[in-house]
């Protein structure tokens, strides 16, 4: 990596009382001014990593530096340089959007006048001016999230932590939040965001760390990670639900990697190298097994495939509690 690291973590380990190791040696290096995605299934340790780096939770072993400050030694100093937007929108429901931002401004020690001016700026930047005087409880999911992001940006933090910023949002709100994140990055903020949506990491992140069971199992830029899976993926559409399992079995046998089954779309896909020749082999194998297919096609790989290939989990990053 050429630039300097805004976040540097080495060998972070943390166990919760009564649980196993939530972090089992996490290494992370995030270049200043970039977006880094932490991708992983539920329980992988994404939230724990972010909470450790944002000084909310201690860790047992390892070392961590955020915006030039040793997290373990000077947590208060870290807090002056970061913004934290947790998994649940942590805005005050009763206060208006404006009052929320003013309050956080005061708590960042901006002083009354500057807090007020800053609130106005943020309302404009996050497109909340019209709703500014309404209580936050009347906001839509996307607006609430934007207010939450704005509250995390009061000080123009060097580093912003976003824990699953779009989980539970409809597609429109999601793209609103993505736009807001891009605005922040354009302003020079380094962003570490966790997500279980591969598409989100693909769209927003300059680099991605794939987390599984408290370890980083892969790191790279989205294209590089996709390239690891090789040429592409084969997708087969079947006529009915009964057809899914036998087709998946054949495809896994031929490709040697786990297949992803999308029941709703009646579609089975596997990551698969070899281009046209591979497609032919797949068609032949399905034919020999006497299986009917509606459609078969070769597609460019997605991060889903990367994920599946790395974790071997069929549910990779898709389920949600």
């Amino acid at each position: 990596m050429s630039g300097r690291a805004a976040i540097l973590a080495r060998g972070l380990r943390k166990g919760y009382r009564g649980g196993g190791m939530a972090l089992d040696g996490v290494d992370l290096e995030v270049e200043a001014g970039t977006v880094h995605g932490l991708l992983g299934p539920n329980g992988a340790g994404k939230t724990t990593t972010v909470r450790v780096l944002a000084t909310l939770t201690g860790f047992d072993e390892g070392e961590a530096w955020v915006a030039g400050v040793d997290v373990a030694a000077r947590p208060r100093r870290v807090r002056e340089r970061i913004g934290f937007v947790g998994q649940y929108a942590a805005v005050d429901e009763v206060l208006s959007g404006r009052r929320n931002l003013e309050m956080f401004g005061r708590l960042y020690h901006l002083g009354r006048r500057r807090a007020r001016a800053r609130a106005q700026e943020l309302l404009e930047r996050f497109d909340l001016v019209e709703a500014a005087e309404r209580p936050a409880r009347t906001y839509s999911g996307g607006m609430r999230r934007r207010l939450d992001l704005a509250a995390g940006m009061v000080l123009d933090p060097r580093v912003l932590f976003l824990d699953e910023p779009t989980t539970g949002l409809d597609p429109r709100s999601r793209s609103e939040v993505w736009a807001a994140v891009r605005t922040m990055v354009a302003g020079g903020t380094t962003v570490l965001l966790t997500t279980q949506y591969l598409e989100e990491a693909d769209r927003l992140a300059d680099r991605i760390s794939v987390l599984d069971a408290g370890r980083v199992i892969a790191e790279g830029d989205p294209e590089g990670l996709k390239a690891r899976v090789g040429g592409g993926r084969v997708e087969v559409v079947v006529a009915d639900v009964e057809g899914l399992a036998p087709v998946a079995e054949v495809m896994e046998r031929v490709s040697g990697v786990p297949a992803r089954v999308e029941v709703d779309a009646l579609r089975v896909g596997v990551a698969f190298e070899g281009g046209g020749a591979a497609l032919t082999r797949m068609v032949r194998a399905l034919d020999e097994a006497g299986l009917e297919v509606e459609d078969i096609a070769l597609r460019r790989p997605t991060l889903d495939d990367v994920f599946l290939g790395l974790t071997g989990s069929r549910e990779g990053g898709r389920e949600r509690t």
Partner: protein
Amino acid sequence: MRTLEGRAPERVVEAVEVERSGSWTREVVVGLGWAVADAVVVARRYLTHLVRRPGEIVGTLMIPVMAVLLFGFVFGEAMGAAMGVDSVDYRDFLMPGLFALTMAFGIGNTTIAVVTDVGRGVVDRFRTLPMAPSALLVGRGMADVVAALVDLSVLVVMGLLIGWRWHLGPWAALAGLGLLLLLRMAFTWIGIFLGLLVRGPEAAMKFFSLVFPLAMVAETFVPARMVPGWLAPVVEWNPLSATVLACRELFGNSVASGDSWVAQHAIPMAVVWPVVLLAVFVPLSLWRYRRAGR
């Protein structure tokens, strides 16, 4: 860390040097100033809640107001007769008990507010701000005292309407109200601690169902000499009782308050009890807040 001896690895963005701007005492004074300022900002937040959702105050006052009507007028004569006083004197006796009861019931609101903030992630957000770690809790405590002032004002007016009076002048009366606020402050911190301890409002409600009998097994409705002998010490040593007895004394209530040790030292005990509770629950709460989510 150990190997780096506090120096940042080379790749880390401009490492900050440890600067010591002034003397140690200066830092403490500045720190305290911010702690108070931050707490005031937080207190304003909770007071806004109170104004926007007056239901909370109405809810807190419901039970005491019902009790005024029920014990003042329905059972008042019988209770008074049992104590050897008429119903007017009984109401005079009753009001300080209800004031203190209301202070105790404030615990419920505090606990629920704190539990909700923890559950919604608001506490996490506050904990990542560079503000004084005590500010969220102290601010809540401040707001509660203001809420208690509103509660007390309503009840005082209500009391005056049904014939309760202070007989020893306004200063003694104010001293009594001050003791009630002190009690509420202590109870607030119990509420804050419970809020940080339990998970979810349902668990908080369970604790609250314990507060209810504890607030009753005190000098609230009847004097200690009228409860069964084995229960009398509980009544006497209930923190609520000291405040109730002290208020009866300061308001100049004619019903004799008994001759137990606590009854004889009601006013000092009405200070000692809340101070002890604060000395226990303030540090406990701050400790718990710092460790939240570990």
